[in-house]
């Protein structure tokens, strides 16, 4: 009776979340996430990276993870708010929302756009969390049969598939990945104890802390990038029509009628795409956008490009649902499939919690509390959002120089508090400069983070497999599961070229969709 034990575990989780202190962490997390996420150009990965140091001294990881879930939801919804109001999506997953959402705002329908995004996020978040509740443990016990070769193969698949899908160019994406893998190599080799690329300094023996890499690439890199183009980009004022109908009536009857199907379709896309290694929310949000557009055309009602509510409802639901999807491989296999998930994994590691098949047995309370906190986080988000929208909008008025100066202060604080010396700040700056040039040259950031975090695991599993097989490299292809995953990895490399391949088979001109699939060179 799997079903019953799940309910018991979940109830236990709810019991922990509803502890007043934990509830406070959840509310605090959502608030902080909203506050930072609503700032223009800042996505969930950067938000979590900036807020990581707050939890360094938590004695209890449960409180920290409840807060992370809140931060994530807050940041995600904050990002949608900014996309809708001032058209500055902080990450690619919000781009689809910005297309129709900002048009709606310009036509004086900002409240309706925000409402369909918030309610859609709640619906999608809740449904997908229910799915997560029921699939996580079974998948976890399946994964407990995994051997070293399987782990090696699936880690490779995650890195390669995400790299192939998220970037505009396979060469640049793979370059990002190898640079990340290289950063992961720095320090003492875990198996033999040999120092690698430490350049004779003691500082590098422990390797480069992943927090430094994340803060450097996201926070400092982004600030330098914005700094270089401040002069040429004018500040955009926020638009929110005066609220005539406060509290209720954000959505008209026809808005509800037009929103609920896109919410459900978005959820159906978001969850599975989040769960497979496809880079998180980017692919499902764009798929949802184009499906809703096609549906609207079929009905002969085409507002798309001119502020169609379906174009906000669908992608927002997909965005939120993909988060629960991303948690499936993250919790059951320890496998992050997006930059944000990689940051979450780093957070797990800070607390010495190793996600994977054993997590549901070793850390049962933690994992079920985390899942329960997703339900609560969604609800808090809905309650705090719409009524308080006037307050959130004030955050958008922070002038950009102060905003980015503040990001620098928090970035420095985060890396400084790792060991209490200025050295970490310098290290983060060096990585930030790398991030700056990566943005200038259009290199994707996510593969670097995945490389840094997954590289060491992958190497360990690889070498462990060879130790077990006495050096026989054929183990990776003779075990069926590993072989299948490795074949999938190779196939993933061709995904970016899919539109072209399909076009060639059909004998038509290829139409490039550079956002869902990488642009080929």
């Amino acid at each position, binding site marked *: 009776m799997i079903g019953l034990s799940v309910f018991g575990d979940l109830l236990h989780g709810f019991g922990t979340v509803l502890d007043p202190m934990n509830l406070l962490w959840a509310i605090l997390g959502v608030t902080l996430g909203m506050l930072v996420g609503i700032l223009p*150009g800042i996505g969930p990965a950067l938000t979590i990276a900036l807020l990581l*140091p707050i939890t*360094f*001294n938590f004695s209890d990881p449960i409180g920290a993870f409840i807060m992370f879930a809140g931060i994530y939801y807050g940041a995600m919804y904050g990002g949608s708010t900014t996309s809708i109001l001032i*058209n*500055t*999506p902080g990450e690619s997953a919000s*781009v*689809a929302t*910005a297309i129709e959402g*900002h048009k709606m705002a310009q036509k004086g329908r900002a409240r309706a756009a925000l409402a369909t995004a918030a309610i859609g996020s709640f619906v999608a978040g809740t449904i997908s969390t229910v799915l997560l509740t029921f699939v996580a443990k079974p998948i976890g016990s399946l994964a407990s049969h995994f051997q070293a070769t399987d782990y090696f193969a699936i880690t490779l698949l995650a890195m390669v598939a995400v790299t192939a899908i998220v970037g505009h160019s396979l*060469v640049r994406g*793979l*370059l990002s990945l*190898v640079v990340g*893998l*290289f950063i992961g*190599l720095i320090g003492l*080799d875990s*198996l*033999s104890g*040999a*120092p*690698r*690329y430490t350049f004779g300094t003691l500082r590098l023996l422990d390797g480069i802390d992943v927090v430094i890499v994340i803060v450097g690439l996201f926070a400092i890199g982004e600030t*330098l*990038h914005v*700094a*270089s*183009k*401040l*002069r*040429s980009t004018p500040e955009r004022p926020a638009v929110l029509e005066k609220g005539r109908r406060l509290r209720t009536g954000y959505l008209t009857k026809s808005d509800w009628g037009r929103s609920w199907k896109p919410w459900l379709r978005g959820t159906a896309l978001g969850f599975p795409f989040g769960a497979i290694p496809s880079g998180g929310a980017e692919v499902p949000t764009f798929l949802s956008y184009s499906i809703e557009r096609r549906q609207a055309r079929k009905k002969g009602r085409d507002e*798309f*490009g001119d502020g169609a509510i379906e174009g906000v409802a669908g992608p927002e639901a997909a965005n939120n649902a993909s988060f629960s999807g991303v948690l499936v491989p993250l919790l059951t296999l320890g496998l992050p499939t997006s930059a944000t998930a990689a940051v979450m994994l780093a957070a797990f590691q800070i607390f010495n919690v190793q996600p994977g098949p054993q997590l549901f047995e070793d850390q049962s309370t933690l994992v079920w509390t985390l899942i329960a906190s997703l339900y609560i986080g969604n609800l808090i988000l809905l309650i705090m959002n719409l009524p308080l929208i006037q307050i959130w909008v004030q955050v958008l008025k922070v002038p*950009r*120089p*102060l905003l980015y*100066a503040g990001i*620098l*202060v928090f970035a*420095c*604080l985060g890396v*400084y508090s790792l060991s209490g*010396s*200025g*050295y970490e*700040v310098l290290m983060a*700056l060096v990585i*930030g*400069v790398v991030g*700056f*040039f990566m943005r*200038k*040259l*259009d290199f994707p950031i996510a593969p670097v983070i995945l490389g840094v975090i997954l590289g060491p695991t992958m190497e360990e599993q690889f*070498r462990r497999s*060879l*130790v077990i097989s006495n050096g026989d490299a054929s183990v990776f292809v003779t075990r069926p599961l590993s072989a299948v995953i490795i074949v999938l990895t190779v196939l993933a490399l061709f995904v970016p070229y899919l539109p072209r391949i399909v076009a060639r088979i059909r004998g038509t001109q290829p*139409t490039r969709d550079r956002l869902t699939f990488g642009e080929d060179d």
Partner: protein
Amino acid sequence: MSTSEEAVSGEAVEEAVKASDVEVEASRLVRIIAALVLIVLSATFLVGVFDIRSPKGFDPAGPRFFPLLVTSAWLVLSIAYLLEGLRSPKTARATDRSWFEPVAVSALLVLYALLVVPLGYLIATALLFFAAARVLGSRQLVRDIVVAVVLTVVVYIAFTQFLDISLPGGVLGL
């Protein structure tokens, strides 16, 4: 789906892409220089593989194998990136990007890293915030000073008192 429909949707997406930061703004020259830097780095690290101590033992792959794999893949990809840059059209995009601000912000961070312990968290951080805001174009002196001081003090108190993270007291002797 007809081609005209595709074109319309392409436009909307294109617009959104412009609005976000997903834009290629580097000229051909910068790309080629970057590729050359990557080639030099990867080649150096590839040679560096042989400096790694590799004990003969139970581990068939050893500590050298992965570095060798990673750095050689890096070298090959860098060469591919160079070829890509060389083949790209020569029209360099007119760039209105400024180099002053990023260089100045980097310099501020170096100073901060050197001064945060001797000066103390409060003074160094307030100065960092103020100077960064000025570099990034803020022109309201009083506001910048007030925000710098208030933000720094709030962060200091929150982190030292509530989160038990120790921050340097420095010359203020806190």
